[in-house]
């Protein structure tokens, strides 16, 4: 019987520990424990309207918390009590879907990542249109970026976080060793040639190709093609796109200047280590990646030069706006108008855009602030890279395209992530045409 005593005591202890703290949970414990992590801005303000936000990035949460503090300073008559919750990426989007679907449990505001955005523009849209806060400012934005978060009627639903212009980051140390002058790289042919020089003279590849859609979508958009035509017919397997994928895959198989990205994508820790150690001579990634480079690949400080994409024959597009999170206001928001105003204050205003750069290191989607003093003021980003980042961006401002999305775009991206790139680039078990045709076929089966 004695042993039972032990087991029961254990169960009981667990139970009691549980109950004890369960009670404390309502009291001081929670307040103390939370004080540092979950910040509720404006908790002590009277008559403050509660606004909460779901996000998947801790830095976004901090950005909004800071904005809330500034809001309360600026509008003491209309204070807000702001809380941001950070969830795992997938779960945040899934929970948001479920909460919007069932009409209950959604936050006032939510960050939605670009690839997930179309999922939320189906049926009766459960997000609030943001036209009234956008329209006064629309001319100051890079339009291609803002359009990404709109539906087919042209209503805007998401406030952009950055321009996210796809650029090439050249590692000058390696380029010098290979004897390549990066200013001479104007077309993709030049790029391949430079790549061959790099692989001949150094022991690293020119670049690595990620296994997700970052490895193809920017190229497709830059060449002026798309996954869908204007009538929303799926054309991902047309000749033009096949050629583009052939080009990408030729860097790996034919020209031997590229490898598959370690870890499979640019956000993998394996890749951070690889890139940091000078594992590749150049990186094709959007401007928001500067943030990642500074935080995770410190050794590259001072070694990188950012340039627009090399040109395709017959297209003068120099960059493609990629990735990016749109902040939305849900129809379950307690005070829709106030929430919208706060969102405009935080992300659409000039000040907000300047903070995007200063706090998060994101290139603001408003080009009219690019020349402002605050943006040009010396900071660690310029130290890490170089001073003329915004001059380069201003230079190509009209040559940036965005991506166009519809409800089937996530299917396309899914197929690319799980089948196309894997089979063509890593396994080399399918030709680009085979892979794209197979993917298109499987997507068409699901299109009603």
């Amino acid at each position, binding site marked *: 019987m004695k042993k039972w005593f032990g087991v029961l005591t254990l169960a009981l202890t667990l139970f009691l520990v549980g109950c004890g703290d369960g009670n404390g949970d309502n009291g001081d414990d929670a307040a103390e424990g939370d004080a540092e992590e979950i910040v509720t801005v404006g908790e002590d303000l009277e008559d403050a309207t509660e606004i909460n936000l779901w996000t998947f990035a801790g830095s976004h949460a901090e950005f909004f918390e800071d904005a809330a503090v500034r809001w309360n300073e600026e509008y003491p008559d209309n204070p807000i009590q702001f809380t941001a919750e950070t969830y795992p990426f*997938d779960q945040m989007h899934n929970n948001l879907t479920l909460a919007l679907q069932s009409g209950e449990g959604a936050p006032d505001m939510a960050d939605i990542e670009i690839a997930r955005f179309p999922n939320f523009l*189906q049926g009766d849209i459960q997000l609030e249109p943001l036209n009234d806060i956008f329209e006064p400012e629309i001319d100051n934005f890079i339009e291609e970026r803002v359009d990404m978060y709109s539906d087919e009627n042209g209503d805007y639903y998401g406030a952009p976080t950055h321009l996210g212009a796809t650029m090439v980051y050249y590692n000058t140390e390696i380029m010098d060793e290979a004897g390549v002058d990066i200013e001479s790289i104007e077309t993709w042919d030049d790029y391949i040639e430079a790549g061959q020089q790099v692989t001949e003279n150094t022991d690293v590849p020119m670049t690595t190709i990620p296994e997700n859609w970052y490895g193809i979508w920017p190229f497709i958009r830059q060449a002026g093609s798309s996954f869908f035509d204007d009538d929303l017919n799926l054309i991902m397997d047309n000749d033009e796109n096949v050629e583009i994928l052939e080009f990408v895959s030729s860097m790996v198989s034919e020209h031997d200047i590229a490898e598959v990205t370690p*870890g499979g994508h640019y956000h993998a820790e394996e890749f951070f280590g690889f890139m940091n150690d000078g594992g590749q001579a150049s990186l094709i990634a959007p401007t928001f990646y500067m943030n990642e480079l500074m935080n995770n690949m410190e050794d590259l400080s001072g070694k990188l030069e950012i340039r627009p994409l090399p040109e395709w024959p017959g297209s003068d597009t120099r960059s493609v706006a990629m990735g990016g999170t749109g902040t939305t206001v849900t129809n379950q928001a307690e005070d829709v108008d106030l929430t919208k105003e706060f969102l405009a204050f935080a992300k659409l205003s000039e000040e907000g855009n300047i903070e995007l750069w200063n706090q998060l290191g994101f290139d603001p989607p408003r080009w009219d602030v690019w020349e402002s003093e605050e943006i040009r003021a010396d900071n660690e980003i310029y130290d890490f890279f170089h001073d003329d980042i915004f001059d380069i961006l201003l230079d190509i401002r009209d040559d940036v395209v965005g991506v166009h999305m519809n409800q089937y775009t*996530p299917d396309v991206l*899914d197929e690319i992530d*799980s089948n196309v790139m*894997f*089979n063509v680039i890593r*396994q080399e078990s399918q030709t680009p045409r085979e892979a794209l045709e197979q993917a298109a076929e499987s997507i068409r089966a699901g299109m*009603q």
Partner: protein
Amino acid sequence: MANQSNAQNNRVMKFLNSKKVVPYILVSPFIVTFIVLTLYPAIQAFIMSFQRILPGQTEFIGLSNYRRVLSPTFYTAFQNTTIYVILTTLILVTVPILLAALLNSKATKYSTFYRASLFIPSLASIIVAGTVFRLIFGETDTALANQVITWFGGEPIQWQYQSWSAMFLMVILSSWRWMGVNVMYYLAALQNVPPELYESADIDGASTVQKFFYVTIPHLKPIITFVTTITIINGFRMFEESYVFWEANSPGNIGLSMVGYMYDQGVQRNDMGFGAAIGVIVLIIIFIVSIIQLKFTGAFKRGDE
């Protein structure tokens, strides 16, 4: 008065205590939770499988979700899951019997230590386990698994990118976590084998192997049924073992399971009607396999009768 109410009380008590009523009272919490937490949502899900569900716009679309299910992707998921079920069942039903029998024999010193070390992996949550396994089976040459392989003169393997190694990862993760638990089930049952049986087998001159097959195994039968059922069903429900390695999308769908496909389509992609249809098909498959398996092992009969 008092007598009467006593009598009434007695009658109620008697009613509540009759052998006819008692079992129903005992199972009532189960019935309630079954209806609320399983039956109701299951019926809802079944209805959903005939619908196209968008926020505010739900319409019946007949069988078209079911027609979509029979796609190459689902076939891949089915194939992966089936292989996984076969492998995990083979490993997790048989190996623990051997280990338990050995642990139970007098040959093993420190058997408590062995038991504990076998059991400890099950204490780790799938998130922790997944993190560790991903780090051990990382693609770099510096990760443990590849170090061992190169040590023996092999080539480093990109574990998470090939279909055989993907299956290996999932099976090894699952086996690692559940081996100890199943050993415990068997050990518990082994205690109930009357020692006289072994003694008489000894007198008959039976070898260790013979004793194992003619005395041990028959006595373990109910628990083998139990373990097999659980393993098969859990195998068909497999999701997290894949999720911790690749989240929702594995390269080339090498880690895609049926439930994973359902989760991806229904939850991740917000195509709930289609997800529900996949779920119903998965359910039918599990149902058929389990009924066959249970019939085969005679689990519906009561005990030893």
